[in-house]
């Protein structure tokens, strides 16, 4: 046994074993590299990427300015300035909507908190910028992200279900509730 070990160390047995292993990888060349900018890894369905504001299919904003997302956000990313819709005292909207994406940790709590599903998380993640200020997004930018990430839009709530329309008094042209 001792002799065997002695001979093994004499002929560099362990080094030869290692070299055999590397040669095996060399001959059976199967790279695991993903050439990133050219080839992108498929993202999971529930990937939480860049946040965006959504619209209804008639191009009106979903957001009702309720501030719940601002309250839900753990890192105080969101700032909402809510206001009344002019001429319609029962309806509110977000006059200004700011997100400081330098702080966002992409937890998705704002999306969960939103009562009207006005926020969505896109699959975008390539948001590296040279200037940090480019990550302070305003409402227009967030809506643009939502527009390009979610091309399929929902109908207005009152058109989705008549029961909702019954309580919504702010719209004049709502359909009659069916009994």
């Amino acid at each position, binding site marked *: 046994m001792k002799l065997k070990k002695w001979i093994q160390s004499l002929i560099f047995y362990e*080094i030869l074993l*290692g*070299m055999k*292993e*590397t*040669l095996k*990888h*060399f001959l059976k*060349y*199967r*790279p*695991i*590299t993903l*050439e990133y900018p050219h080839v992108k890894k498929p993202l999971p369905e529930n990937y939480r990427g860049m946040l965006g504001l959504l619209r209804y299919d008639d191009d009106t904003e979903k957001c009702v300015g309720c501030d719940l997302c601002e309250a839900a956000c753990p890192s105080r990313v969101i700032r909402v300035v809510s206001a009344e819709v002019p001429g319609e005292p029962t309806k509110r909207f977000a006059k200004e909507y700011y997100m400081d994406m330098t702080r966002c940790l992409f937890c998705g709590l704002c999306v969960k908190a939103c009562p009207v599903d006005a926020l969505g998380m896109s699959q975008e993640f390539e948001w590296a910028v040279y200037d940090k200020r480019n990550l302070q997004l305003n409402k227009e930018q967030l809506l643009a992200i939502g527009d390009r990430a979610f091309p399929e839009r929902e109908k207005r709530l009152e058109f989705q279900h008549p029961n909702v329309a019954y309580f919504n008094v702010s719209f004049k042209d709502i359909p009659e509730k069916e009994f």
Partner: protein
Amino acid sequence: MFDTSIKLALTLSQIGAVMGVVLLTVAILTLLERKVLSWMQDRMGPMEVGPYGVLQPVADGLKLFFKEDIIPAGANKIMFSLAPILVLVPALIGFAVIPFGPNWTIDVMGVEFKPFVISDINIGVLYILAFASIGAYGVILGGWASNSKYSLLGGLRSAAQLISYELNVGLAIVGVLLLAGSLSLVEITEAQAGGFWNWFAFDPVPFPQFIAFVIFLIASVAETNRLPFDLPEAESELVAGFFTEYSGMRFAFFFMAEYANMILVSCMSTVLFFGGWHAPLPVLQAPGVFAWVTGIFWFTAKVYFFLFLFFWIRATLPRLRYDQLMRFGWKVLLPIALGNIVVTSLLAYIFPNG
């Protein structure tokens, strides 16, 4: 006068051709090393420049050429500029005695001319060893002149390593010199004519020099500062060793010198132990005037095999610790090399016509 100018023109064109091939090989090696290494590590290596990244050496060269050449404050400017040259020139100058084709003498307008070796001097091996030692000066000077503690320590370590392993290189060659009875690389190669059983690494009578070859290989890996003996560089631990402060073309000189040294060492092990331009079987050697084609082919194939071996070893082994390096060099390699000399000379005395 006419003869002299003809000889000058022939020699200069020969030097130009050899330098061109060597520098081209250096450029190829930089790419080949990264490719081979990444293939062994299941990666792809450079893929962006040109198809499959084949133009990467061009991009690297251009980048190094146009980079700012920084001389650190407090550096000794003369020594700092001299060191890269002192490293590169000995690495390239060794190719002057390497025979890469059959030992023919052709007559060009009354001038005798050997087309496949620049100069067949009768102390070829000594010449190469001597110039390899001068390379160590460049390393020390580069480390000292940079006015940086990392460079200085890296240079000293590197010099200690070079000197320790140079000894083993020299002693490993002695066995071959005993068998060949000459220091001329051309004559050493010619002594190995015939099949691979006549190569000094395998020649059974009087004594196969395979152990000497292994020692030579290990010591030359250490001398060229390659993994697993790349302590002077140690990318992952030190900054870069003795060329920490170098940038631009000066850095490229060190880089080229490393690769040129690798080629030189591969050429030397081919010539000394593996029969130079001779084919492994006599059948594979083209007869008559076409012998130079197969000669150069086999020489190149052997050299590239050794270069591949360098990459292969690099992909396999981790770096040694400094005390392990010194202990291995002085306590393991040196006694084996000395023993090899004793055994070889005894057997060469007993079988004088082996």
